[in-house]
Protein backbone atom coordinates (compact mmCIF):
# COMPACT_ATOMS: atom_id res chain seq x y z
CA UNK A 1 0.00 0.00 0.00
CA UNK A 2 2.74 2.30 1.02
CA UNK A 3 4.60 1.50 -2.18
CA UNK A 4 1.57 2.29 -4.30
CA UNK A 5 1.19 5.60 -2.55
CA UNK A 6 4.77 6.40 -3.23
CA UNK A 7 4.42 5.36 -6.83
CA UNK A 8 1.31 7.53 -7.14
CA UNK A 9 3.03 10.57 -5.73
CA UNK A 10 5.85 9.85 -8.14
CA UNK A 11 3.39 9.89 -11.02
CA UNK A 12 1.80 13.10 -9.77
CA UNK A 13 5.23 14.66 -9.50
CA UNK A 14 6.16 13.51 -12.98
CA UNK A 15 2.91 14.97 -14.31
CA UNK A 16 3.56 18.22 -12.54
CA UNK A 17 7.01 18.42 -14.07
CA UNK A 18 5.58 17.62 -17.46
CA UNK A 19 2.90 20.25 -17.16
CA UNK A 20 5.54 22.60 -15.91
CA UNK A 21 7.72 21.98 -18.91
CA UNK A 22 4.77 22.16 -21.28
CA UNK A 23 3.92 25.51 -19.79
CA UNK A 24 7.54 26.57 -19.95
CA UNK A 25 7.53 25.58 -23.60
CA UNK A 26 5.62 28.67 -24.55
CA UNK A 27 8.34 30.69 -22.94
CA UNK A 28 11.18 28.25 -22.44
CA UNK A 29 14.74 29.31 -22.00
CA UNK A 30 13.96 32.87 -21.27
CA UNK A 31 15.28 31.47 -18.02
CA UNK A 32 17.38 34.47 -17.21
CA UNK A 33 14.65 37.00 -17.78
CA UNK A 34 14.34 38.98 -14.58
CA UNK A 35 11.13 38.29 -12.76
CA UNK A 36 12.02 40.92 -10.20
CA UNK A 37 11.63 44.22 -11.98
CA UNK A 38 13.13 46.23 -9.10
CA UNK A 39 16.30 44.17 -9.22
CA UNK A 40 16.39 44.40 -13.00
CA UNK A 41 16.11 48.18 -13.08
CA UNK A 42 18.84 48.47 -10.45
CA UNK A 43 21.00 46.01 -12.42
CA UNK A 44 20.52 47.79 -15.71
CA UNK A 45 21.33 51.16 -14.17
CA UNK A 46 24.46 49.83 -12.47
CA UNK A 47 25.46 47.98 -15.63
CA UNK A 48 25.30 51.11 -17.70
CA UNK A 49 27.24 53.07 -15.06
CA UNK A 50 29.92 50.36 -15.05
CA UNK A 51 29.96 50.42 -18.82
CA UNK A 52 30.68 54.15 -18.90
CA UNK A 53 33.31 53.71 -16.24
CA UNK A 54 34.89 50.84 -18.19
CA UNK A 55 35.00 52.82 -21.42
CA UNK A 56 36.32 56.05 -19.95
CA UNK A 57 38.57 54.86 -17.13
CA UNK A 58 39.11 51.14 -16.86
CA UNK A 59 39.69 50.17 -20.48
CA UNK A 60 41.99 53.11 -21.30
CA UNK A 61 44.06 52.19 -18.22
CA UNK A 62 44.18 48.56 -19.31
CA UNK A 63 45.08 49.70 -22.84
CA UNK A 64 47.93 51.85 -21.46
CA UNK A 65 49.14 48.84 -19.47
CA UNK A 66 49.06 46.79 -22.67
CA UNK A 67 50.90 49.50 -24.62
CA UNK A 68 53.81 49.78 -22.21
CA UNK A 69 54.28 46.06 -21.56
CA UNK A 70 55.16 43.01 -23.61
CA UNK A 71 53.24 39.73 -23.41
CA UNK A 72 56.22 38.33 -21.49
CA UNK A 73 55.94 41.02 -18.83
CA UNK A 74 52.16 40.69 -18.61
CA UNK A 75 52.53 36.94 -18.13
CA UNK A 76 54.93 37.55 -15.20
CA UNK A 77 52.48 40.01 -13.64
CA UNK A 78 49.46 37.73 -13.97
CA UNK A 79 51.58 34.89 -12.56
CA UNK A 80 52.24 36.98 -9.44
CA UNK A 81 48.52 37.42 -8.92
CA UNK A 82 47.83 33.76 -9.60
CA UNK A 83 50.47 32.83 -7.05
CA UNK A 84 48.84 35.01 -4.41
CA UNK A 85 45.72 32.88 -4.76
CA UNK A 86 47.50 29.64 -3.90
CA UNK A 87 47.04 29.90 -0.10
CA UNK A 88 43.29 30.45 -0.61
CA UNK A 89 43.30 27.58 -3.05
CA UNK A 90 45.08 25.36 -0.55
CA UNK A 91 42.55 26.18 2.17
CA UNK A 92 39.67 25.47 -0.15
CA UNK A 93 41.06 22.09 -1.15
CA UNK A 94 41.10 21.35 2.58
CA UNK A 95 37.49 22.52 2.95
CA UNK A 96 36.61 20.14 0.15
CA UNK A 97 38.42 17.35 2.01
CA UNK A 98 41.14 17.02 -0.58
CA UNK A 99 44.39 17.11 1.42
CA UNK A 100 46.48 16.22 -1.61
CA UNK A 101 45.22 19.24 -3.52
CA UNK A 102 45.83 21.41 -0.45
CA UNK A 103 49.39 20.17 -0.25
CA UNK A 104 50.06 20.80 -3.94
CA UNK A 105 48.73 24.39 -3.71
CA UNK A 106 50.80 25.05 -0.61
CA UNK A 107 53.96 23.61 -2.21
CA UNK A 108 53.34 25.65 -5.33
CA UNK A 109 53.07 28.80 -3.20
CA UNK A 110 56.27 28.11 -1.30
CA UNK A 111 58.29 27.08 -4.35
CA UNK A 112 57.04 29.80 -6.70
CA UNK A 113 57.25 32.59 -4.11
CA UNK A 114 60.91 31.83 -3.53
CA UNK A 115 62.54 30.10 -6.49
CA UNK A 116 59.90 31.51 -8.82
CA UNK A 117 60.73 35.07 -7.71
CA UNK A 118 57.48 36.15 -5.99
CA UNK A 119 55.50 33.95 -8.31
CA UNK A 120 56.69 35.46 -11.57
CA UNK A 121 57.78 32.08 -12.83
CA UNK A 122 55.89 28.86 -12.40
CA UNK A 123 58.81 26.68 -11.33
CA UNK A 124 56.57 24.17 -9.59
CA UNK A 125 54.78 23.31 -12.81
CA UNK A 126 58.06 22.09 -14.25
CA UNK A 127 58.30 19.71 -11.30
CA UNK A 128 54.93 18.24 -12.08
CA UNK A 129 53.13 20.25 -9.40
CA UNK A 130 50.29 21.65 -11.42
CA UNK A 131 46.58 21.92 -10.74
CA UNK A 132 43.61 24.22 -10.98
CA UNK A 133 43.56 27.16 -8.58
CA UNK A 134 40.27 27.17 -6.71
CA UNK A 135 38.48 29.63 -4.44
CA UNK A 136 35.53 29.82 -2.07
CA UNK A 137 33.02 29.83 -4.89
CA UNK A 138 34.18 26.37 -5.99
CA UNK A 139 33.82 25.14 -2.42
CA UNK A 140 30.34 26.63 -1.97
CA UNK A 141 29.29 25.13 -5.29
CA UNK A 142 30.60 21.78 -4.11
CA UNK A 143 28.54 22.19 -0.92
CA UNK A 144 25.46 22.71 -3.10
CA UNK A 145 24.92 26.32 -2.02
CA UNK A 146 22.80 27.87 -4.77
CA UNK A 147 24.06 30.80 -6.78
CA UNK A 148 21.13 33.20 -6.26
CA UNK A 149 19.96 35.89 -8.66
CA UNK A 150 22.07 37.92 -11.05
CA UNK A 151 23.39 41.10 -9.43
CA UNK A 152 25.55 43.78 -11.01
CA UNK A 153 28.02 45.11 -8.45
CA UNK A 154 29.39 48.66 -8.58
CA UNK A 155 32.68 48.63 -10.55
CA UNK A 156 33.12 44.87 -10.09
CA UNK A 157 30.37 44.05 -12.56
CA UNK A 158 28.34 40.83 -13.08
CA UNK A 159 27.93 38.75 -9.95
CA UNK A 160 25.58 36.69 -7.79
CA UNK A 161 25.28 36.56 -4.00
CA UNK A 162 27.41 33.41 -3.86
CA UNK A 163 30.01 34.88 -6.18
CA UNK A 164 30.14 38.19 -4.30
CA UNK A 165 30.57 36.55 -0.90
CA UNK A 166 33.25 34.23 -2.29
CA UNK A 167 35.07 37.15 -3.86
CA UNK A 168 35.15 38.93 -0.48
CA UNK A 169 36.43 35.83 1.30
CA UNK A 170 39.09 35.20 -1.35
CA UNK A 171 40.18 38.77 -0.85
CA UNK A 172 40.55 38.72 2.95
CA UNK A 173 42.35 35.38 2.89
CA UNK A 174 44.84 36.72 0.37
CA UNK A 175 48.37 36.74 1.89
CA UNK A 176 48.80 40.45 1.18
CA UNK A 177 45.62 41.16 3.16
CA UNK A 178 46.39 39.07 6.23
CA UNK A 179 50.12 39.71 5.94
CA UNK A 180 49.63 43.44 6.48
CA UNK A 181 46.61 43.35 8.76
CA UNK A 182 48.69 44.29 11.83
CA UNK A 183 50.22 47.32 10.21
CA UNK A 184 47.42 49.81 9.69
CA UNK A 185 49.78 52.15 7.91
CA UNK A 186 50.32 50.05 4.86
CA UNK A 187 47.35 47.69 5.13
CA UNK A 188 44.86 49.87 3.26
CA UNK A 189 47.35 51.09 0.72
CA UNK A 190 48.65 47.63 -0.03
CA UNK A 191 45.28 45.93 -0.33
CA UNK A 192 43.58 48.67 -2.36
CA UNK A 193 46.42 49.16 -4.80
CA UNK A 194 46.68 45.43 -5.22
CA UNK A 195 42.96 45.13 -5.91
CA UNK A 196 43.09 47.95 -8.47
CA UNK A 197 46.17 46.50 -10.15
CA UNK A 198 44.49 43.12 -10.31
CA UNK A 199 41.42 44.75 -11.86
CA UNK A 200 43.57 46.29 -14.59
CA UNK A 201 45.29 42.97 -15.28
CA UNK A 202 41.97 41.15 -15.59
CA UNK A 203 40.50 43.91 -17.74
CA UNK A 204 43.48 43.75 -20.10
CA UNK A 205 42.84 40.04 -20.55
CA UNK A 206 39.12 40.42 -21.15
CA UNK A 207 38.51 43.75 -22.82
CA UNK A 208 38.68 42.47 -26.39
CA UNK A 209 36.00 39.92 -25.65
CA UNK A 210 33.87 42.51 -23.85
CA UNK A 211 34.11 44.93 -26.75
CA UNK A 212 33.23 42.14 -29.17
CA UNK A 213 30.18 41.15 -27.15
CA UNK A 214 29.02 44.75 -26.91
CA UNK A 215 29.50 45.32 -30.63
CA UNK A 216 27.58 42.22 -31.63
CA UNK A 217 24.64 42.61 -29.28
CA UNK A 218 21.46 44.66 -29.49
CA UNK A 219 20.88 44.39 -25.74
CA UNK A 220 24.33 44.22 -24.17
CA UNK A 221 22.95 43.85 -20.65
CA UNK A 222 20.80 40.84 -21.54
CA UNK A 223 23.60 39.23 -23.58
CA UNK A 224 26.07 39.61 -20.72
CA UNK A 225 23.64 38.29 -18.16
CA UNK A 226 22.75 35.20 -20.19
CA UNK A 227 26.42 34.47 -20.87
CA UNK A 228 27.50 34.98 -17.26
CA UNK A 229 24.71 32.92 -15.71
CA UNK A 230 25.10 29.98 -18.10
CA UNK A 231 28.83 29.90 -17.52
CA UNK A 232 28.33 29.69 -13.75
CA UNK A 233 25.74 26.94 -13.87
CA UNK A 234 27.94 23.91 -14.34
CA UNK A 235 29.91 23.98 -11.11
CA UNK A 236 30.56 21.65 -8.19
CA UNK A 237 27.45 19.81 -7.07
CA UNK A 238 25.49 21.37 -9.92
CA UNK A 239 27.90 19.90 -12.43
CA UNK A 240 26.57 17.44 -14.92
CA UNK A 241 29.40 15.77 -16.76
CA UNK A 242 27.56 12.73 -18.00
CA UNK A 243 24.81 14.51 -19.90
CA UNK A 244 24.14 17.69 -21.74
CA UNK A 245 21.19 18.66 -19.51
CA UNK A 246 22.04 22.31 -19.09
CA UNK A 247 21.83 23.11 -22.75
CA UNK A 248 19.80 20.18 -24.04
CA UNK A 249 16.71 22.32 -24.32
CA UNK A 250 13.78 21.42 -26.51
CA UNK A 251 13.95 23.46 -29.67
CA UNK A 252 10.16 23.28 -29.67
CA UNK A 253 9.77 23.87 -33.39
CA UNK A 254 7.20 22.08 -35.48
CA UNK A 255 8.61 20.98 -38.78
Amino acid at each position, binding site marked *: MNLIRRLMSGVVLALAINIGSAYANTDNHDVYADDDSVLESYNRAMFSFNNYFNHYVFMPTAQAYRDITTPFVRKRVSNIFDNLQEPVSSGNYLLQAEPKGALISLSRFVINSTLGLLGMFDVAEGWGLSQKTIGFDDTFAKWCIPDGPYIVLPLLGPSTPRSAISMGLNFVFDPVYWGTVNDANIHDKATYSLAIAYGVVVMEQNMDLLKDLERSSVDYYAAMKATYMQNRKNKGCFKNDSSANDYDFD*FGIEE
Partner: protein
Amino acid sequence: MKKLIATALFILGVYAAPAMAEVNAAQAQKFVEDVTNDGIENIINANVSQQEKDKRFATLFNNALDMKFIGQFVLGRYWRTATPEQRDAFIKAYREMNIKTWSKRFDEFKGRNFKFIGTTPSNSANQIFVNSEVPMPEGQPAKVVWRVKKTGDTFKIVDIIIENVSLAITARNEYSAYIKKSPNGVDDLIKDLQQKVADKPAKAA
Protein backbone atom coordinates in the same frame (compact mmCIF):
# COMPACT_ATOMS: atom_id res chain seq x y z
CA MET B 1 1.44 -4.37 -7.87
CA LYS B 2 3.81 -6.06 -10.24
CA LYS B 3 1.44 -5.24 -13.04
CA LEU B 4 1.41 -1.59 -12.10
CA ILE B 5 5.18 -1.39 -12.19
CA ALA B 6 5.29 -3.27 -15.48
CA THR B 7 2.75 -0.86 -16.93
CA ALA B 8 4.68 2.11 -15.62
CA LEU B 9 7.87 0.78 -17.15
CA PHE B 10 6.08 0.15 -20.41
CA ILE B 11 4.70 3.67 -20.51
CA LEU B 12 8.10 5.08 -19.64
CA GLY B 13 9.62 2.95 -22.38
CA VAL B 14 7.17 4.16 -25.00
CA TYR B 15 7.53 7.67 -23.77
CA ALA B 16 11.29 7.59 -23.91
CA ALA B 17 11.52 5.81 -27.26
CA PRO B 18 11.04 8.71 -29.68
CA ALA B 19 13.55 10.78 -27.75
CA MET B 20 16.14 8.10 -28.34
CA ALA B 21 15.90 8.29 -32.14
CA GLU B 22 19.27 7.20 -33.35
CA VAL B 23 21.81 9.58 -34.70
CA ASN B 24 24.99 7.83 -35.67
CA ALA B 25 27.58 9.23 -33.26
CA ALA B 26 30.58 8.53 -35.45
CA GLN B 27 28.95 10.14 -38.48
CA ALA B 28 27.94 13.22 -36.52
CA GLN B 29 31.44 13.65 -35.13
CA LYS B 30 32.93 13.16 -38.59
CA PHE B 31 30.66 15.91 -39.89
CA VAL B 32 31.83 18.42 -37.27
CA GLU B 33 35.47 17.39 -37.74
CA ASP B 34 35.14 18.00 -41.47
CA VAL B 35 33.60 21.43 -40.90
CA THR B 36 36.37 22.53 -38.51
CA ASN B 37 39.11 21.07 -40.73
CA ASP B 38 37.64 22.85 -43.73
CA GLY B 39 37.68 26.11 -41.77
CA ILE B 40 41.24 25.69 -40.57
CA GLU B 41 42.75 24.50 -43.85
CA ASN B 42 40.81 26.48 -46.42
CA ILE B 43 40.22 29.69 -44.49
CA ILE B 44 42.55 30.30 -41.53
CA ASN B 45 45.67 28.76 -43.05
CA ALA B 46 44.87 29.65 -46.66
CA ASN B 47 47.06 32.21 -48.34
CA VAL B 48 44.29 34.38 -49.77
CA SER B 49 42.98 37.91 -49.26
CA GLN B 50 40.80 38.75 -46.25
CA GLN B 51 37.93 39.40 -48.63
CA GLU B 52 38.23 35.90 -50.06
CA LYS B 53 38.47 34.50 -46.52
CA ASP B 54 35.27 36.28 -45.52
CA LYS B 55 33.55 34.91 -48.61
CA ARG B 56 34.69 31.37 -47.90
CA PHE B 57 33.65 31.70 -44.27
CA ALA B 58 30.16 32.81 -45.29
CA THR B 59 29.83 29.76 -47.56
CA LEU B 60 31.07 27.37 -44.88
CA PHE B 61 28.79 28.98 -42.30
CA ASN B 62 25.72 28.75 -44.52
CA ASN B 63 26.40 25.13 -45.42
CA ALA B 64 27.21 23.94 -41.93
CA LEU B 65 24.57 25.73 -39.84
CA ASP B 66 20.80 25.51 -40.07
CA MET B 67 20.20 29.20 -39.48
CA LYS B 68 16.49 29.03 -40.17
CA PHE B 69 16.07 26.42 -37.45
CA ILE B 70 18.24 28.36 -35.01
CA GLY B 71 16.51 31.63 -35.85
CA GLN B 72 13.10 30.15 -35.04
CA PHE B 73 14.28 29.06 -31.62
CA VAL B 74 16.03 32.36 -30.98
CA LEU B 75 12.92 34.38 -31.72
CA GLY B 76 10.92 32.08 -29.43
CA ARG B 77 7.27 32.97 -29.00
CA TYR B 78 7.69 36.03 -31.19
CA TRP B 79 8.24 33.71 -34.14
CA ARG B 80 4.62 32.59 -34.03
CA THR B 81 3.23 36.11 -34.20
CA ALA B 82 5.72 37.33 -36.80
CA THR B 83 4.61 37.77 -40.42
CA PRO B 84 6.37 35.74 -43.14
CA GLU B 85 8.17 38.93 -44.23
CA GLN B 86 9.37 39.60 -40.70
CA ARG B 87 10.55 36.01 -40.36
CA ASP B 88 12.58 36.16 -43.57
CA ALA B 89 14.04 39.54 -42.72
CA PHE B 90 14.97 38.39 -39.23
CA ILE B 91 16.68 35.19 -40.42
CA LYS B 92 18.59 37.16 -43.03
CA ALA B 93 19.77 39.84 -40.59
CA TYR B 94 20.57 37.27 -37.89
CA ARG B 95 22.55 35.20 -40.37
CA GLU B 96 24.57 38.18 -41.59
CA MET B 97 25.22 39.40 -38.06
CA ASN B 98 26.60 36.01 -37.08
CA ILE B 99 28.77 35.71 -40.17
CA LYS B 100 30.17 39.14 -39.51
CA THR B 101 30.89 38.48 -35.84
CA TRP B 102 32.39 35.06 -36.33
CA SER B 103 34.49 35.67 -39.41
CA LYS B 104 36.28 38.32 -37.37
CA ARG B 105 36.86 36.01 -34.44
CA PHE B 106 37.69 32.99 -36.53
CA ASP B 107 41.36 33.86 -36.90
CA GLU B 108 41.79 33.39 -33.15
CA PHE B 109 41.73 29.67 -33.80
CA LYS B 110 44.94 29.93 -35.80
CA GLY B 111 47.42 27.26 -34.80
CA ARG B 112 44.94 25.48 -32.56
CA ASN B 113 43.27 22.21 -33.24
CA PHE B 114 39.97 20.93 -32.00
CA LYS B 115 40.34 17.70 -30.09
CA PHE B 116 37.19 15.63 -30.38
CA ILE B 117 36.25 13.72 -27.26
CA GLY B 118 33.09 11.80 -28.09
CA THR B 119 29.39 12.53 -28.17
CA THR B 120 26.47 12.95 -25.76
CA PRO B 121 22.88 11.98 -26.64
CA SER B 122 20.14 14.62 -26.77
CA ASN B 123 16.54 14.39 -25.63
CA SER B 124 15.48 15.95 -28.92
CA ALA B 125 14.82 13.57 -31.80
CA ASN B 126 17.54 13.33 -34.46
CA GLN B 127 19.95 15.46 -32.49
CA ILE B 128 23.26 14.76 -30.80
CA PHE B 129 26.02 16.70 -29.05
CA VAL B 130 29.59 16.41 -30.36
CA ASN B 131 32.11 17.30 -27.65
CA SER B 132 35.43 18.95 -28.34
CA GLU B 133 38.24 20.82 -26.62
CA VAL B 134 40.36 23.72 -27.79
CA PRO B 135 43.74 24.35 -26.16
CA MET B 136 43.97 27.85 -24.67
CA PRO B 137 47.10 29.95 -24.30
CA GLU B 138 46.47 30.02 -20.53
CA GLY B 139 45.12 27.36 -18.25
CA GLN B 140 42.84 24.51 -19.13
CA PRO B 141 41.45 23.86 -22.60
CA ALA B 142 38.06 25.38 -23.45
CA LYS B 143 35.15 23.00 -23.88
CA VAL B 144 33.25 23.45 -27.12
CA VAL B 145 30.13 21.37 -27.77
CA TRP B 146 28.42 21.19 -31.16
CA ARG B 147 24.74 20.42 -31.31
CA VAL B 148 24.09 18.53 -34.52
CA LYS B 149 20.77 17.75 -36.17
CA LYS B 150 20.23 15.11 -38.79
CA THR B 151 17.62 15.57 -41.48
CA GLY B 152 17.51 12.74 -44.00
CA ASP B 153 21.16 12.21 -44.82
CA THR B 154 22.37 15.70 -44.04
CA PHE B 155 23.83 16.98 -40.83
CA LYS B 156 23.55 20.59 -39.71
CA ILE B 157 24.89 22.41 -36.67
CA VAL B 158 22.02 23.94 -34.66
CA ASP B 159 23.87 25.27 -31.61
CA ILE B 160 27.42 25.80 -30.36
CA ILE B 161 28.04 25.64 -26.62
CA ILE B 162 31.27 27.24 -25.43
CA GLU B 163 32.19 26.64 -21.80
CA ASN B 164 28.58 25.82 -21.02
CA VAL B 165 27.30 28.96 -22.75
CA SER B 166 24.83 28.12 -25.51
CA LEU B 167 24.82 30.65 -28.32
CA ALA B 168 21.16 29.91 -29.08
CA ILE B 169 20.00 30.38 -25.47
CA THR B 170 22.07 33.56 -25.13
CA ALA B 171 20.61 35.06 -28.31
CA ARG B 172 17.10 34.02 -27.32
CA ASN B 173 17.43 35.73 -23.95
CA GLU B 174 18.96 38.81 -25.46
CA TYR B 175 16.41 39.19 -28.23
CA SER B 176 13.36 38.55 -26.10
CA ALA B 177 14.60 41.13 -23.56
CA TYR B 178 15.13 43.55 -26.43
CA ILE B 179 11.72 42.96 -28.03
CA LYS B 180 9.96 43.37 -24.68
CA LYS B 181 11.45 46.85 -24.31
CA SER B 182 10.99 48.02 -27.91
CA PRO B 183 7.94 49.94 -29.07
CA ASN B 184 7.94 48.21 -32.47
CA GLY B 185 9.09 44.80 -31.26
CA VAL B 186 10.47 42.49 -33.94
CA ASP B 187 10.71 45.28 -36.52
CA ASP B 188 13.03 47.25 -34.23
CA LEU B 189 15.15 44.16 -33.67
CA ILE B 190 15.51 43.54 -37.41
CA LYS B 191 16.43 47.17 -37.99
CA ASP B 192 19.04 47.16 -35.23
CA LEU B 193 20.58 43.93 -36.47
CA GLN B 194 20.76 45.35 -39.99
CA GLN B 195 22.48 48.45 -38.65
CA LYS B 196 24.98 46.30 -36.77
CA VAL B 197 25.74 44.41 -39.97
CA ALA B 198 26.20 47.71 -41.81
CA ASP B 199 28.44 48.95 -38.96
CA LYS B 200 26.23 51.90 -38.20
CA PRO B 201 25.78 52.82 -34.55
CA ALA B 202 22.43 51.46 -33.42
CA LYS B 203 19.93 53.74 -31.82
CA ALA B 204 19.60 53.42 -28.08
CA ALA B 205 16.81 51.04 -27.20
